[in-house]
């Protein structure tokens, strides 16, 4: 059963990475923003000020002076330090049932995570991934660094 879930999770991840078309559903909102922070959406760059909605498939990028904090709709807290690239690959959340799933990537930089309601209810439907690893979450808080923190 667990293996089936993992396989399913991998399939979803693959679909996410290879850019299967998906509706631009609301995933969360920018709550803190410092220095250079941009949101990349449909090939366009937006300045990510506090209050900017974050949609599924958005990429969040911080400059060397940048840091950003996002609260997802299921109350997951994400925040990134300088020179980071974070991707919101999947997010779905039903606020009535608290069912949902999410997949968030960090390509480089630093990311802190305080997991939310989806991870609490169905941890198997949450993953975080780096270029080399996939993280499964059991209702918790953690930090991830990709690269040595000095690259651009």
């Amino acid at each position, binding site marked *: 059963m667990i293996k089936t879930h993992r396989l399913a999770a*991998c*399939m979803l*991840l*693959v*679909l996410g*990475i*290879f850019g299967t078309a998906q509706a631009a559903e609301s995933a969360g*909102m*920018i*709550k*803190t923003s*410092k220095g250079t922070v941009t949101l990349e959406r449909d090939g366009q760059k937006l300045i990510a000020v*506090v*209050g900017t909605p974050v949609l599924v498939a958005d990429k969040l990028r911080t400059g060397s002076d940048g*840091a*950003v*904090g*996002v*609260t997802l709709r299921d*109350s997951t*807290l994400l*925040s*990134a*330090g*300088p020179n*980071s690239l974070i991707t919101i690959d999947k997010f779905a959340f039903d*606020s*009535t049932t608290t069912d949902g799933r999410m997949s968030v990537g960090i390509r480089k*930089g*630093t*990311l*802190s995570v*305080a*997991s*939310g309601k989806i991870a609490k209810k169905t941890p198997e439907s949450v993953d975080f991934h*780096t*270029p*080399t*690893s*996939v*993280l*499964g*979450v*059991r*209702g*918790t*808080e*953690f*930090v*991830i*660094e*990709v*690269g*040595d*923190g000095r690259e651009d």
Partner: protein
Amino acid sequence: MRTDLRLPVLVLAVLLVAGCASERIVLLPSADGRPGAVVVRGAGGEIRLDRPYAATARRGGANETYQASTEHVQERFGAALAAQPLRPKSYVLYFEVGSNQLTAESQAEFAKLRAEVGERAAAEVMVIGHTDTVGNSQGNDALSLKRAESVRDLLAEAGVAGEKMEVVGRGERELLVPTADEVDEPANRRVEINLR
């Protein structure tokens, strides 16, 4: 099954970058004190971090597992942690029997909620209405939604933008205090407000 072709491509891609990438993961103590864990799966197998400050680092394909210090976390992740949004917070407001009128105590609580909504940057509010088991479930669905909407309207009057509020009515499905049917239970006549 077009995905069958994609999986090997992904595995290959992961193996290609695994040789040169570096990464580090540190489990932090959770704010609510509950034990948590992170399971890291990569080319080198599976690593489970289940104690606060347990950490794993990979460089050039070699894995190292260690116990991180708070100073180490601060040095590496201080900027990311400093940018963390405020923790979501829950309020609960109670109602007079069969009505959408707040109790006197809850009117005071509402004032606190309203103040905090104003203090938070880009506050978003989820309003979830509930009832006790007096009356039928259809009627209670409607009543719970009406309660949630009345709280939303009060917040709107207080200047909270409509698009930042979501309203849900759960009727008598989620009793805070479990009771039999047709029981007048004040603790179940409530609206939860999740502020984030």
